């Protein structure tokens, strides 16, 4: 597996969180392996990975609910080893929010302030101000069950933010919301973070959330980070096959490298389909490889002439059209090998009327496809 690129810990001045060789196992199972990274002050940092990869374990170590087996963990330069969760300058937004149902909105937000011994008038002012900032002015007296899903979300965040933590940890807070609301809250959360300027460490298994909101995303797998970078970097320059497959939709092919031409390689699948692509990492002729090309990186047309000249072109038969407005795709089988591919349909709806069985032509730039050692 190619080496991930952990951001090296820098001076405490710039970084709110530094994680150094953090390690945690449950019995024989290693949940978090020797992890090192740091999070820049004021940034929105996401950890993206499939279920069970260790995200929650990592976050809970930062919050202090789980003690690491090894390594260090510094917040604002101070080691947090042995510091109880209620004494760490971090707050957490839980997956199911964990709002206190027996308290009103105002009481929920004031809870942490009161624990700090802040007197009720001062606390009240802060609560009012905080509710204003999350767009729920005057909701102090409401019961939790009177709130909509999105409003609950905002109260949960307000409850943490009011304590002005150095770090806000969020564990898939949008997971329980329905689709439309989730779309909406993504944008709202990003804006909120930009306004308050608090450092967010955000966990999700939904790549769209991570891409839309984050300044930096770490892609996690089996307790390690595969790649840390900006959303664009992950999307356009995946460092590992895992990242290429996990972030964004992708067509995936397996085969053996036939030819190499500088940084580009030609891979041939078992069914005989030959595909050019960018190689990532060490890879040479004769090695088995996996190749990814994104549905939206493929140009499609009824005529071969519609395709941009220069790129390798293929013809194919339409298997089925998955019409979904702006996200429509077509499933085709390449003509000679029969290999199935998904291709995104143009946004304009130009090809929305494709019919099953029709012949189409497609092409892609080899520089937009990546090949990894298998």
């Amino acid at each position: 597996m190619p080496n991930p690129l952990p951001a090296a810990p820098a001076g405490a001045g710039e970084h709110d969180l530094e994680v150094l060789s953090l390690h945690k196992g449950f019995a024989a199972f290693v949940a978090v392996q020797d992890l090192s990274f740091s999070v820049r002050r004021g940034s929105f940092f996401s950890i993206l990975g499939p279920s069970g990869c260790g995200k929650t374990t990592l976050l809970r170590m930062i919050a202090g609910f789980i003690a690491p087996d090894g390594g260090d963990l510094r917040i604002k330069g101070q080691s947090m080893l042995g510091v109880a969760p209620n004494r760490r300058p971090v707050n957490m937004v839980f997956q199911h929010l964990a709002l206190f149902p027996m308290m009103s909105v105002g009481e929920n937000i004031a809870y942490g302030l009161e624990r700090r011994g802040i007197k009720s008038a001062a606390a009240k002012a802060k609560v009012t101000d905080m509710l204003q900032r999350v767009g729920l002015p005057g909701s102090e007296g409401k019961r939790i069950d009177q709130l909509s899903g999105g409003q609950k979300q905002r109260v949960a965040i307000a409850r943490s933010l009011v304590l002005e933590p150095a770090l806000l940890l969020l564990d898939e807070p949008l997971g329980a919301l329905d689709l439309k609301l989730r779309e909406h809250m993504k944008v709202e959360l990003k804006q909120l973070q930009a306004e308050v300027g608090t450092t967010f460490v955000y966990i999700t298994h939904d790549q769209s959330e991570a891409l839309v909101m984050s300044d930096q995303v770490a892609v996690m797998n089996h307790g390690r980070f595969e790649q840390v970078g900006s959303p664009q970097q992950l999307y356009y320059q995946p460092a590992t096959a895992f990242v290429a497959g996990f972030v964004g939709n992708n067509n995936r092919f397996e085969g053996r490298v036939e030819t190499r031409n500088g940084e580009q390689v030609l891979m041939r699948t078992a069914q005989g389909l030959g595909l050019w692509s960018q190689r990532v990492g060490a890879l040479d002729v004769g090695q088995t490889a996996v190749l990814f090309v994104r549905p939206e990186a493929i140009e499609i047309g009824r005529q071969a002439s519609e395709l941009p000249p220069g790129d390798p072109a293929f013809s194919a038969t339409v298997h089925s059209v998955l019409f979904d407005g702006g996200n429509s795709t077509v499933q085709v089988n390449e003509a000679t090998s029969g290999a199935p591919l998904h291709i995104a349909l143009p946004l304009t709806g130009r090809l929305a009327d494709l019919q099953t069985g029709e012949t189409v032509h497609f092409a892609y730039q080899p520089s937009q496809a990546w090949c990894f050692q298998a």
Partner: protein
Amino acid sequence: MIPSLPRPASQRFGLGAFVAGFFVFLFVPLLVVAVFAFNDAAYPTPPWMGFTLDWFAADSDTRTGLLADGELMRSLGTSAWVALWVTVLSVGVGTCNAFLLERFEFPGKNAIALLTMLPLVIPGVILGISILAFASRIANFADETWGLELDFLRPGLPLVILGQFCYIVTIATLTISASLRRFDRTLEEAAYNLGASRLAVLWTITLPYLRPSMIGAAAMAFLMSFENFNTTLMLVGSDPPLTVLMYGRMREGATPVLNAISLFLMIASALLALMLLWRKPAGTSD
């Protein structure tokens, strides 16, 4: 079947009639007890001899009404006193047990969990005699070896309280455990994360959450203690709670004053029921 399925009228009517009959069956005995509290006769049996309030208010040579019946009133007080202690002990220990069983792992936990449920299936009489026998042994031992008279181990209210507590705490434990099991522990973590100490978490989050089930368990404990007979009978000393007194009266000479006190109990529990219904919005039974 359920309302969303079309049912033949016969089935719908049949079930309705059955349920109506069921509730009649449930309430007829209480109804006659209540009615005969007003019978102008010396015995709580038919025939109907006319209406009187004597069995509530009278205080004459031949008739002692509820209010004048010191012995009865005293036993009512005794029952309440016992029930109060049983309630406090049961809810207290039941809450501890719930935390123990839901929150801790330790060797032998399964055995303890099983033992916890055992008193539910031990007949009350046996519970009573075994506690009586065991307490006597200790008391006799203390008496013989040290000349120490451990009064509370002799039949009497302390033993009655312990005996009732012994199985009522099981019910409290089950009720509170069930509620604690449903409790979302991330609420505690959230509070802890917001800076609360462990004690504050318990006090501000967990216990308030458990409060309804603790109140429920308390109501249950009080009522079960109040109406217990089997265990109490074996452990009672010189001041009988209401049920034991009533049993004695029924053997030795019942007057409708028993119906009167019964009616009082019915009204008290109906009021309690109304209060519960009032507190609970529709559809949130559990």
